[in-house]
């Protein structure tokens, strides 16, 4: 019987219960829900427990975009319920598998409807459609008993009884539209209260039925720690359609991508997606979205004068064109525990930093957003930058020398809990890296994202790779990458840019001398010699032992 109830829609709240920045607590068939409305109006119905330690999310904080657990501050985003930040692991991006349970929900006729596995249409309300929603009356009695008693109540009211548990329910009534709304609400609040007292007195005389036992899924052990990178390769799992496209600055197109089926996965600031184009090319673009903006992804694409078919193809796309993209990956995660975060953007390199700045801005964390552009006409995402007020500084038309001077000013004072994130053209990043090294910033405080790898790469020489966990030894011939050899031999290894810039195909090296050719690892990580980018880096020694 419980199973058939699982398929049904039940009202679990009045629309007016979900005021902004509030978390409503509900229960249906024994399962507790945390219900909250995001600032964009979306109604989230989630299991009422944090995946971490099981604390009720109904005591958490709804910041309008995300729900934050009171206990250890895990943040879950609007719509997907995916975890976007774990304060105890500030340098890591939470795995996509850390996602709370969500339940079907709809808002109609002044009520929030939900169900364990509800499907199909909502009940037809007939003459009561868009009527007056009565004050809900919770009753400590079985729903069936309450339903029977309600049969002798005012026939003009349409009733739904929400079975919270086997011995607890809520009467939710709808009256036909009426001028004397307040009088009617008061009258029924009192009369239903009297009815409740009667039913509860009766229920106290009979034996209470056994409580419903909702299935509480076990939380995977992995959630205790940050899981390792996902294993799938370069795949395009998400079909999306272009629902808006405009030129927002000289040579820069903004594209709004909405899913063609199912919902978009959770992203965090700094994340990028692979866009698979019709001509077979695969390009990486950072998501510019703010926190909780989970119904679409927005990317900014600069038309490169020497485009090899990537940016020019995207600029030629039109509204309604479909694309295949990868799930978002985040190799440029944003810490939220810095006393100050300095974001330095060069040109189109502003896109991941824009998403970071929007998250910091919403959370009220201190940051500075420095945006280097060629000219006024090149400023992209002006409206979003406008919301940063004094935190944003735009540096226009600086020569390489002036840029270097300005970067020296911005990076003048390394501090123990200050963090710098930089994304932009290669020469600017190289300059910043050199200045940061000179001023004493440590590698762990300054985070770079290159959008390409301009270093001259050397693919000469053959060597062997020993895969410690797979018990295989493979030969990497001249002119072929480790990544290709792995894929040819059926070994899954995620990859994205395949140019040594994005960090997706990072691999732990157990032994052997690495010939680093990427721009993702920091100098100290390269010197430590225990990690490499398998898409471009090679071996100086005859053989490498990899943790694969």
């Amino acid at each position, binding site marked *: 019987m419980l199973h058939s109830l699982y398929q049904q829609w039940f009202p679990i709240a009045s629309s007016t219960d979900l005021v902004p920045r*509030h978390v409503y607590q509900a229960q249906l068939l024994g399962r507790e829900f945390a219900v909250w409305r995001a600032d964009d109006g979306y109604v989230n119905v989630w299991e009422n427990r944090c995946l971490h330690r099981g604390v009720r999310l109904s005591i958490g904080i709804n910041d309008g975009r995300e729900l934050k657990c009171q206990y250890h501050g895990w943040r879950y985003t609007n719509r997907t319920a995916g975890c976007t930040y774990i304060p105890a692991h500030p340098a890591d991006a939470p795995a996509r598998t850390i996602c709370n349970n969500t339940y079907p929900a709809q808002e109609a006729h002044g009520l929030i409807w939900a169900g364990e596995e509800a499907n199909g249409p909502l009940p037809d309300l007939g003459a009561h459609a868009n009527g007056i929603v009565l*004050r809900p009356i919770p009753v400590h009695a079985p729903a069936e008993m309450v339903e029977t008693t309600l049969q002798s109540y005012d026939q003009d009211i349409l009733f739904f009884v929400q079975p919270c548990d086997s011995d607890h329910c809520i009467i939710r009534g709808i009256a036909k539209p009426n001028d004397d709304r*307040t009088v009617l609400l008061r009258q029924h609040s009192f009369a239903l209260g009297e009815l409740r007292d009667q039913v509860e007195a009766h229920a106290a005389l009979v034996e209470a039925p056994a409580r419903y036992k909702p299935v509480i899924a076990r939380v995977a052990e992995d959630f205790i720690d940050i899981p390792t990178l996902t294993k799938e390769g370069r795949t395009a799992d998400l079909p999306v359609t272009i629902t808006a496209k405009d030129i927002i600055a000289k040579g820069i197109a903004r594209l709004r991508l909405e899913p063609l089926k199912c919902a978009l996965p959770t992203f965090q600031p700094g994340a990028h997606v692979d866009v698979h184009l019709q001509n077979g090319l695969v390009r990486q673009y950072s998501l510019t979205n703010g926190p909780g903006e989970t119904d679409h992804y927005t990317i900014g694409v600069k038309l490169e004068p020497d485009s090899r078919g990537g940016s020019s193809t995207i600029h030629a796309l039109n509204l309604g064109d479909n694309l295949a993209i990868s799930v978002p990956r985040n190799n440029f995660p944003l810490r939220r525990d810095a006393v100050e975060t300095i974001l330095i953007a060069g040109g189109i390199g502003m896109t991941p930093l824009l998403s970071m700045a929007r998250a910091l801005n919403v959370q009220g964390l201190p940051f500075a957003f420095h945006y280097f552009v060629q000219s006024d006409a090149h400023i992209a995402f002006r409206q979003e930058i406008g919301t940063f007020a004094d935190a944003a500084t735009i540096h226009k038309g600086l020569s390489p020398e002036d840029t270097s001077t300005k970067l020296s000013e911005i990076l003048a004072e390394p501090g123990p809990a200050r963090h710098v994130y930089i994304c932009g053209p290669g020469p600017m990043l190289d300059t910043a890296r050199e200045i940061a090294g000179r001023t004493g910033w440590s590698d762990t405080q300054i985070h770079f994202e290159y959008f390409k790898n301009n270093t001259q790469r050397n693919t000469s020489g053959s060597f062997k790779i020993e895969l410690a966990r797979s018990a295989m030894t493979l030969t990497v011939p001249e002119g072929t990458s480790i990544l290709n050899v792995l894929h040819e031999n059926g070994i899954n290894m995620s990859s994205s840019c395949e140019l040594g810039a994005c960090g997706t195909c990072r691999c732990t090296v157990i032994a052997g001398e690495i010939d680093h050719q990427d721009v993702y690892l920091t100098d100290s990580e390269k010197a430590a010699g225990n990690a490499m980018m398998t898409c471009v880096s090679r071996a100086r020694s005859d053989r490498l032992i990899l943790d694969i």
Partner: protein
Amino acid sequence: MKLYNYELSGNCYKLRLLMSFLGVDYETEAIDFYPGQKHKSPDFRQINPLGQLPAIEDNGLVLRDAQAILVYIASKYDADGTWYPAQDPALLGQVMQWLAFADGITATASAARLHDGLYYSHIDVEAARKGAHTLFRILDEHLFFAEDAGQAWICPSDQPTIADIACFPYIMLSEEGGINRMDYPAIRRWCDRFKRIPGFIVMPGIFPAGPAFEKPAA
């Protein structure tokens, strides 16, 4: 002013709240309520013969009873006269009505918490919980219709009054006495509003609210 204080006491918290809202400076003297039972000691009974917290001393005046002290502090230190609206008879009557109601919350919800949390095993906890639910049903209905009339607080004023302060702590701590508030959505929303009053402070078991919703600039 000196407050005889116990950190886990909701009644002492009422006074800490009001003094924080008003920006009144005060010192505290910690009374070891549990496990020391120092509120029943001969020394403390010379301050309050009832052997109960809180009590204050202000310029030689010794005063006991949380609600009475709220009236005193608000009358003396709130220049705007909004927390204790002595100039508005109808409003003042309602404030006093809900102060008495708050005593009922203390007698039930606080008693259940003392039973569950501080080993007051002589308390009939089922009766205490039932009594608290009866009061919460009344307050939830009151707040539902207050909200419906565009009124944010327990009494019909644009500003919160000491009636809100008197009711807040033991409602917010009720779960420590096994009293779930899921059935009281209007009370839960009022708790959020209360936590957003400028100057709000927390105590163990009471968390802060998140930022309030502000309409984005057009």
